[in-house]
């Protein structure tokens, strides 16, 4: 029967020939490079709904689909719905059937999260899975791949100018700053180091000085102090995020719980009244230049202007 024949042929895996690249060729920092991708992709699918989606939207790239499940930020969600992006479900197991039905010409994802499905995705469209890198570098790579080279340059230049002016102003103060995130039953401190999470890399660039506990030289990204170790957050100013989980409903309750604890009230920043809550959107789900600018806003508002 023809079905059996088709099955047998498939089981024998005919390999396809390697054509010359008509578009762009990229090879650094990606999974299974070098790859040939179209010069001007018109239908892009992103498998990562956080930083990749955010940056692609900022670059004005023609995105057609993204997983909805992990999008926290209201602004991003609104953009996504306004553009009628197709929902791919869970970012860890995106629906490849929907991707196939969209006939995209480029798929972008994360090497760490999507390496397993690379082979299948690559059969649908050229698939670029980026490895983990510094956020500004990532913005550059994405603009090369999706928005056309140089689209991000203007924006990055503006950002750099703003950061250096803030850095000058910070150098004139002697203040140390501590940051912490509240999670149910524990605390998470994102440290200042070579592998720092994007918002805290921004802090570092802006010349913000963190306490000794919060500064590292190795690849640590987070520390998890308990109530006793919390005393090490002895900065003059304390910025905190309340993020109880995926949804934001419980955040206020969590904040109240923590702030009422006498051990919290013994912290130097709290005692001098310089503990401020910041929005979890840019600080916990960083998604591009807009987030970076909001972080700089927070720095200006709480550290520089409140002197």
């Amino acid at each position, binding site marked *: 029967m023809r079905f059996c024949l088709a099955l047998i042929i*498939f089981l024998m895996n005919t390999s396809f020939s390697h054509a010359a690249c008509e578009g762009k060729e990229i090879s650094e920092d990606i999974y299974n490079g070098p790859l040939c991708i179209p010069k001007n992709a018109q239908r892009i699918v992103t498998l990562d709904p956080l930083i990749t989606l955010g940056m692609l939207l900022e670059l004005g790239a023609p995105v057609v689909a993204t997983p909805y*499940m992990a999008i926290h930020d209201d602004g991003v969600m609104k953009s996504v719905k306004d553009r009628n992006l197709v929902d791919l479900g*869970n970012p*860890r*197991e995106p*629906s*490849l059937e*929907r991707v*196939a*039905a969209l006939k995209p010409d480029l798929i972008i994802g994360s090497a760490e999260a999507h390496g397993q499905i690379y082979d299948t995705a690559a059969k649908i469209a050229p698939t670029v899975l980026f490895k983990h890198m510094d956020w500004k570098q990532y913005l550059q790579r994405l603009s090369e791949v999706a928005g056309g080279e140089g689209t991000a340059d203007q924006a990055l230049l503006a950002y750099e100018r703003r950061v250096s002016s803030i850095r000058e102003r910070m150098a004139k103060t002697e203040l140390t700053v501590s940051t912490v995130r509240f999670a149910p039953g524990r605390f998470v401190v994102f440290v200042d180091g070579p592998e720092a999470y994007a918002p805290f890399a921004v802090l570092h660039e802006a010349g913000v000085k963190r306490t000794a506990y919060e500064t590292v030289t190795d690849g640590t990204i987070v520390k998890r102090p308990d109530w006793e170790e919390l005393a090490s957050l002895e900065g003059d100013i304390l910025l905190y995020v309340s993020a109880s989980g995926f949804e934001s409903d419980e955040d206020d309750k969590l904040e109240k719980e923590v702030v009422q604890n006498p051990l919290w009230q013994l912290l130097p920043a709290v005692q001098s009244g310089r503990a401020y809550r910041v929005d979890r959107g840019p600080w916990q789900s960083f998604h591009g230049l807009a987030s970076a600018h909001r972080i700089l806003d927070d720095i200006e508002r709480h550290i520089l202007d409140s002197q």
Partner: protein
Amino acid sequence: MIRVISAFTLLLTLLIAASLTFGDISISWHAVFAVLSGSIDASQQDVMIVLELRLPRVLLGILVGTALATAGTITIAVLRNPLAEPGVLGINGGAAAAAMAVIVLMQDPPVFLLQVAGFCGATIMAVTVFLFAWRGGTSSLRIILIGVGLGALASAVTTFLSAFGEIGDVQRAMIWLSGSVYDANMLKVRLLSIWLVLPIMLTFLLSSELDLIRFGDNAARSLGQPVDKMRGLLIFICVMICGAAVAVSGLIGFVGLIGPHIATRLVGQAHYRIIPVAALVGACLVTSADLAGRVIIAPAQLPAGIVTGLIGAPFLAYLIWGRRHERG
């Protein structure tokens, strides 16, 4: 018996057809047929979806279901208890601990490492269980108890790793652990089918030994069976089968329990009849679980392991109810 086998084969064929047709994107029966018969009319996109995305999942599901059901038949016979699942041998616990270790401790592990780790974890655990239980001979009771104990140890290690890993990694691990054929591809199908052919055929050939060992050590020995060696061999085969299935698709539970039970109910106690029927039941079960998981909350996927787990509850209840008059 012929009737039972034909009925289940028919069911399986229907499930295969349904799995190829239904999913996130609807494809009509005509289109599916066009794709399968290699006709030029079939659209590129349909070919992609049916042959690249759905077909490997279906085939993998069939293989995994067959493997788990056969492994379950072996454990029930060797451990002489209707509730004995391959998981009791610590296979699931070992695979889970190894996989969790890889995901949490390694930065950017290469993709195939998870498979290898799962398989190694399962095998090492099963071997350890068997060695610990060996004390001048083996005994079903000891094997089960040691399996439970080592399983608890492995589960403590897994929980420990999950409590301290990055939440993203832990989630990835939990999805793998809940058993899914999401990332199926033809390579896995090919490898798994080659791997499984020998052990499953061997199991079928050893049906009479399975019948014997089920009667108890003394009875089997008096009929000339080298009981300890046979138990060891059968457990070895079971681990090979189960370890491969777990490595490929994570922990899909209850197939090893439900398959043999339904088979015994339908065709009696003789293993040369139970094995093929249990295999068919297992294949149907996993295929339908995967189909249900794909379709119920699209576009998100419910892992097949969770669906089989949910089916397990009513099944356990049915078992209790059916046996309420029996006293051990």
